[in-house]
């Protein structure tokens, strides 16, 4: 066994390259991205301290006001403070994005490992299943499922998890296919190691890094996806301040006040931009080979 050199696994390699953040912050756009992500995280953690009002508090006499010293970003159609709603909305964005990407990641890793390792019929069945899930534009698949499950936060999380899962399964499957043939896996097998042990202790650590990076890059898309579903009334229920719901309220009163659309649209676009810039800087640092699509 000691004659076959086992490669240090990719997590180890990644950790060896700390401080990653320092490298990310050496890129100007990485700094911008990091600042936006940091602001987002602070807003998620300290929402009750930052928001001047409760997100559901109504001040009907002062409805649809523009920005003022009392209401920094103005009020919506029933006099709720837009700034407070946006701050609390970050919690919904975060609370949807993390578990749904988590579900997609775990399920995708599991199916991808099995497909890549088992091969044959099992592989074909899993691949056809993934093809089926990806045969729809993801928004259509989600709408069709949500139409039947009914709109709620949990259902949105499940649906996003299901829609995003094939991406991870594909990445993990492709990696597993190549790692499966490596000498150290052969060696484990000939020493009588069980499949489960080989899969989870030897293959998984070597194939997981690209999927984790993909997950980080997917976060902003999942956030806009959830907001899109909430915009269509298929996401979280009112009065929850999802950014998409704020946009939707604004859309319904577009001729009376432009502020809700303006602020929630800007918040969504800026958050997505921040996460994308940060994710790309991170990717360039961790895995320069992947930086093919980077514009800078």
């Amino acid at each position, binding site marked *: 066994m000691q004659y076959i050199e086992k490669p240090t696994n990719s997590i180890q390699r990644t950790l060896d390259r700390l401080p990653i953040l320092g490298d990310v912050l050496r890129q100007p756009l990485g700094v911008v991205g990091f600042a936006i992500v940091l602001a987002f995280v602070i807003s998620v953690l300290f929402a009750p301290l930052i928001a001047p009002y409760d997100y559901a508090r109504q001040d009907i006499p002062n409805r649809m006001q523009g920005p003022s010293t009392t209401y920094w970003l103005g009020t919506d159609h029933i006099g709720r403070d837009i700034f407070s709603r946006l701050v609390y909305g970050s919690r919904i964005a975060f609370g949807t994005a993390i578990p749904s990407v988590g579900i997609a990641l775990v399920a995708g890793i599991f199916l991808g490992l099995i497909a890549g390792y088992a091969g044959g019929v099992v592989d074909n069945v899993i691949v*056809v299943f993934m093809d089926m899930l990806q*045969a729809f*534009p993801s928004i*259509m698949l989600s709408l069709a499922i949500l139409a039947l499950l009914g709109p709620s936060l949990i259902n949105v999380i499940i649906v996003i998890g299901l829609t995003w899962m094939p991406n991870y399964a594909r990445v993990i499957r492709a990696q597993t296919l190549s790692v499966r043939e490596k000498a150290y896996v052969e060696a484990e097998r000939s020493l009588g190691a069980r499949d489960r042990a080989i899969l989870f202790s030897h293959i998984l650590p070597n194939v997981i890094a690209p999927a984790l990076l993909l997950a980080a890059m997917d976060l902003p898309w999942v956030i806009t996806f959830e907001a899109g579903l909430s915009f269509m009334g298929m996401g979280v229920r009112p009065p929850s301040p999802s950014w998409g719901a704020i946009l939707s309220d604004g859309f319904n009163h577009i001729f009376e006040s432009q502020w809700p659309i303006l602020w929630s649209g800007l918040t969504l676009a800026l958050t997505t*931009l921040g996460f994308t810039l940060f994710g790309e800087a991170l990717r360039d640092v961790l895995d320069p080979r992947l930086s093919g699509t980077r514009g800078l």
Partner: protein
Amino acid sequence: MLFYIIKRILMTALVLLLVVVFLSLLVHIVPGDPATTILGPRATPGLVQKMREAMDLDKPLYVQISNFVWNLLRGSLGVDAVTGAPINKLVGSALPHTLILAISSLGLAILFGIPMGVYSATHPNSPADRILAVLSISLTTIPSYVAGLFLLLIFAVELHTLPAMGIGKTGDIWDYVRHLILPSVALAITWIGYLSRLVRTSLLEVLNETYIRASRAAGLSERLVRYRYALKNALIPTVAVLGVGLGSLMGGAVFVEIIFTRPGMGLLIYNAIQVRNYPLVRAGVLIVAILFILTNFIADLVYTYLDPRIQLNKRQG
């Protein structure tokens, strides 16, 4: 090649069959009866039974699926459970609007995205390149519904220069185009940024290839080298992406059609979902899935045609 196409068509048929089974299964997994949901709690049992029959729900699952597939093979998508209209007619009137929207957005993306990418790649690291890079990454991160709402605010609500709703008067092509401008720009914005980045990367790669350097060394004009030789090869990956793009633009069209009340497939499916009009949802989603698969397939074929080095059957792995 022929073998590949046949294999691919069989796989596509299998995936589509699974899509139908999946959509039919969905309604059974969920607690509650779609017929009761449509008719409301005060419907008489007789009415509910009629509605169930209209939606084929009184039959076992395999009969439902085989009926649906059989009708589909005969070219019928079934009957709308709520209005009783043939679904073919509804889809027939909605689909062109969505296709026109998707194609014109793609056209806009090509029109702006490719020149932006070419300019960046031919002036690498210049101030303009950096500005274009920040611009295109910013464009990719604006969701289509945010772009749509902002355009609506600026051009329809504030400036009153472009119409906000519908598709205009029937028969008036100029009016139709005017109604198409805001929705297609909203849908194109992400893709302008995306194409620009893609073209920049692939053109930069091609410009470093030896045959480009050889052409330059042979004294060919820079213009000829860049636009005739390099760009042609650099656009190959773009073609593959455009195929996927047309499909995903049809998905993104849902938002834009809601915002601008365009009577396309997105709005049709969305409205059907609102009233739990299950047969219409199933048929509509299936049509979009078929188009989605078809455009990917065509893009793959075009891709091999443009770059004979790519062997389709070897790309399967």
